[in-house]
């Protein structure tokens, strides 16, 4: 490995080594507080993200494993951003709820490393390694609240489902390798699809890969784990799981898709059906949820359906839309979970939607952030979510999937209802004055500066991407137009 390759790998090195350093730091300096640990972790992710954004690697690829195209660096930076915000949110949260000591930031860094690895990998093997390092860290993170049985239950559920999906994924990869004889993503996908028709082995391989991916990003009908895991896991971890891990898996999915040629089209009927099921099921099931975290679980299922719509249109022009949607989703879902984490007190995460009653007037900043995140998730302007949805439907119609766009719009209309429901509780249902002390008020923790800073960043991002998305769209379209390597 040349020195140039080592330099090019700098963001990954910062994350990986940072993770180890954090782990050791806890052992050598046991008196360091949780807050300081989380902040150091945040600083490490921030530096990794900044490096990924601004440096220019001299080599296009390292070890036939990791690519440094604009696409890879974008998703590396996005993973770092998600981890950064997660750690900032965790700083206050971990003072109230036991999230583990130094291993917590260390594992978040390691998961971010896995995400960056997964989305940058140009080899089938690398994709598997990235996926596993990310998921392993998440298994532990979800169960990291040892005092809470729900957290443990969520961890076990995710572990079982994750193990099954990993098995599918690994088997799919090996079938693809068997079919093509190469581990390079580009070469393998080309070999499978260039004749315009996939071989039976290749199709079975892709089907296995789709099952694995479907579990990881919770596409229907592989979504069943999501509501329980979202409900049980600690809010900051779920924020990270819901945004970073899904964005990274989708990045790999996009890479596989865009490396293929015409033969990939034989997957479209399956993906079409999965997208419709996901959008419809996610949005309809969310209608009846009374628990905010479960509601967000179904919402994020549905949101992934929209990304899938853009991905189906990716061979046309949907690639940019899919990447922009993922970016917007990361910002708005982190904001939603960030507020949930900030509202969650000692006794557990805020659960019933009833707990949000009238909070809009007691905690205006956090409530405004939550409302903004929900308006954005619902796809209303002037937020990032609107530009993202617009891009998805535009890409779908442009590539000829008009029915898919119509179904997408119809499900988006359904979704408005449950997103509004949360806003209604925040602002239009005052706390019950018949109770002497409203329960919610006493349990809501005081604001913490780091969490508020994170929310302010996210709100700014949601609005900026909604009003002036031009620069970001240019950037994304720019690197999508080049080979993703």
């Amino acid at each position, binding site marked *: 490995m040349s020195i140039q390759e080592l330099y090019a790998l700098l963001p990954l090195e910062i994350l990986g080594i940072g993770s180890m350093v954090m782990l050791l730091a806890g052992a050598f300096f046991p008196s360091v507080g949780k807050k300081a640990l989380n902040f150091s972790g945040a600083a490490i992710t921030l530096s990794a993200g900044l490096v990924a954004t601004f440096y220019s690697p001299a080599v296009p690829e390292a070890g036939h494993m990791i690519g440094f195209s604009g696409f890879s660096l974008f998703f590396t930076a996005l993973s770092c951003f998600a981890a950064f915000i997660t750690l900032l949110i965790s700083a206050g949260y971990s003072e109230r709820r036991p999230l583990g000591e130094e291993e917590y930031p260390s594992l978040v860094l390691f998961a971010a490393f896995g995400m960056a690895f997964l989305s940058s990998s140009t080899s089938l093997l690398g994709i598997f390694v990235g996926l596993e390092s990310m998921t392993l860290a998440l298994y532990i993170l979800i169960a990291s609240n040892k005092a809470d049985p729900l957290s443990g239950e969520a961890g076990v559920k995710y572990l079982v489902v994750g193990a099954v999906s990993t098995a599918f994924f690994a088997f799919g990869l090996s079938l693809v390798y068997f079919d093509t004889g190469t581990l390079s993503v580009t070469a393998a996908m080309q070999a499978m699809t260039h004749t315009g028709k996939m071989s039976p082995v290749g199709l079975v391989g892709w089907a296995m890969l789709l099952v694995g991916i479907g579990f990881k990003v919770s596409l229907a009908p592989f979504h069943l784990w999501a509501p329980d895991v979202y409900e049980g896991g600690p809010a900051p971890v779920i924020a990270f799981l819901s945004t970073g891990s899904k964005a990274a898996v989708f990045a790999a999915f996009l890479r596989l898709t865009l490396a293929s040629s015409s033969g990939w089209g034989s997957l479209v009927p399956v993906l079409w059906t999965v997208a419709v099921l996901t959008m419809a099921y996610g949005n309809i099931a969310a209608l009846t949820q009374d628990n905010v975290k479960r509601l967000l679980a179904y919402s994020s299922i549905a949101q992934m359906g929209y990304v899938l719509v853009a991905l189906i249109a990716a061979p046309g022009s949907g690639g*940019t839309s899919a990447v922009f949607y993922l970016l917007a989703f990361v910002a708005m879902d982190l904001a939603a979970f960030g507020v949930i984490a900030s509202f969650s007190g000692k006794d557990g995460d805020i659960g019933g939607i009833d707990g949000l009653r009238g909070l809009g*007037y007691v905690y205006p900043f956090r409530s405004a952030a939550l409302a903004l995140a929900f*308006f954005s998730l619902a796809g*209303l*302007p*002037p937020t990032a979510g*609107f530009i993202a949805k*617009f891009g998805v*439907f*535009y890409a779908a*119609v*442009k590539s000829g999937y*008009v029915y898919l*766009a*119509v179904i997408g*719009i119809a499900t*988006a*209309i359904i979704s*408005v*209802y449950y997103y*509004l429901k949360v806003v*209604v509780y925040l*602002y*239009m*249902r005052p706390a019950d004055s018949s109770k002497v002390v409203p329960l919610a008020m006493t349990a809501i923790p005081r604001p913490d500066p780091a969490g508020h800073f994170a929310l302010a960043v996210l709100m700014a991002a949601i609005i900026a991407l909604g009003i*002036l*998305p*031009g620069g970001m*769209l*240019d950037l994304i*379209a720019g690197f999508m137009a080049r080979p993703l390597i």
Partner: protein
Amino acid sequence: MQYALTCMVFLPVAFAVPVLFIRDDALVRWVALVATAAELLLGTMLFFTFAQAGHSGKWLLVEDHAWIAQLGIRYSLGMDGISLLLVVLSALLFVMSVIVSWRSVKERVPLFHFMLLLMETGVLGVFLSTDLFLFYLFWEVMLIPMFFIIGIWGHGRRVYSAVKFFIYTVTGSLLMLLGIIGLYIVHGRQTGIYTFALDALAATNVEPSTGLWLFAAFLVGFAVKVPVFPLHAWLPDAHTDAPTAGSVILAGIMLKTGTYGLLRIGFPLLPYAALSFLPVIFMVGLVGVFYASWVAFAQSDMKRLVAYSSISHLALVVIGIAAWNELSLAGSVLQMVNHGITTGALFIMVGMLDERAHTREMAAFGGLWAKAPAMSAFFLLFILSSLGLPGLNNFAGEFLIFVGLFREHPVIAAAAFAGVVWTLAYLLRLAQKVLFGPVTDTGALAGEFPDLTAREYAVVVPLAVLVIAIGLYPSMLLRPLDAPIQGLIVIVKVASAGTGGLAP
């Protein structure tokens, strides 16, 4: 002058943000009043600069900047005579809304005025955008504050009404978004230039079968907002439960965004498809005129009655637009302004009665004239204006619509005229039940009932002056409409020339 339109659109929101952080309620009200009054001043200045000069060009003022280059989206605003009138109307009604909320909105005052000012930006943006994407953005931006205004400061089943309002309009607008995307792509494929500019899109040669679907999408989006029967179900609830300022803006301005959309976007962009839809539009328009009048007659709640009267009045405006000739279009635009003034005023009057008597049931009133003669006189004036008494504003608009309509579609004109007669029935019933008769001991007027205060005079006098002035001298408003209406008619004629023309 270069940035006059941007200033108009964003001035309210520039005030809205600081308003949110002011702790003193009285100061908030004054700041909001200054902001809306400045807006009205700007609007009036533009009106006097342009209205009388007889400009021949299509646009009086334009602004155009690159925005989202990747998708060919531009930030382009343009003002012609039509948008000029609607902008001034909006600016006026927002001032009135701040004044009528002076006493009636007591809770969460900063948030209320924040929403009001944010909505003003949205509404003005809708009337001034000449880029379809920008239009859609403002279209949705004006919804969200209205949702909060009904849901937080409303009465009765306010949350139900707010959510119903929002779901209905969002459904319509998302379908419209699909139409916008479709037209954008059809145009892009044809010319290779992807753009949302209205003028460019109007030149698209849309295949008839596609055009029908696209127009249907636009039609639903606008019809929900107007609202055209049978998509009107949200309106009575939203109006009844909204605070007075909310009702004034909803009826006075928001409903016009629907008819404005048909006029500016629906018909010019897809004239051939619009032609095929004419029977449907006329039919729902006629049904709307009759049905809404009939239901209005059955109401006992004054606010609901005025709400239903809006549906019936707006149905006539839609019929006038569908007739698509110089007279009926001028009449429709004039009628949009008139309806804004008159119905806004009626909601304000009902709000004043409600504030004093804490009921809006007609049965509780009677003999108001004896108790509060000034208030009653203004109420009667606005009722007479609403039913189209010659010499008052509505007469001029309705007359033009009927003359234009009669020329092309005499049967429809006759039917619509019969419908308007019904208007007399419920409005005279309103006047008779509330204003005349004896004061009952058990009714709302039994105790002390103060007449108009100075603040209330400040609201109703300008509106009354406008009612009479427009009634006597409508050409004041019609003159700026000449050029843009000619332009619209030419666009539609040229575009549909190859297909037999719009007029049969």
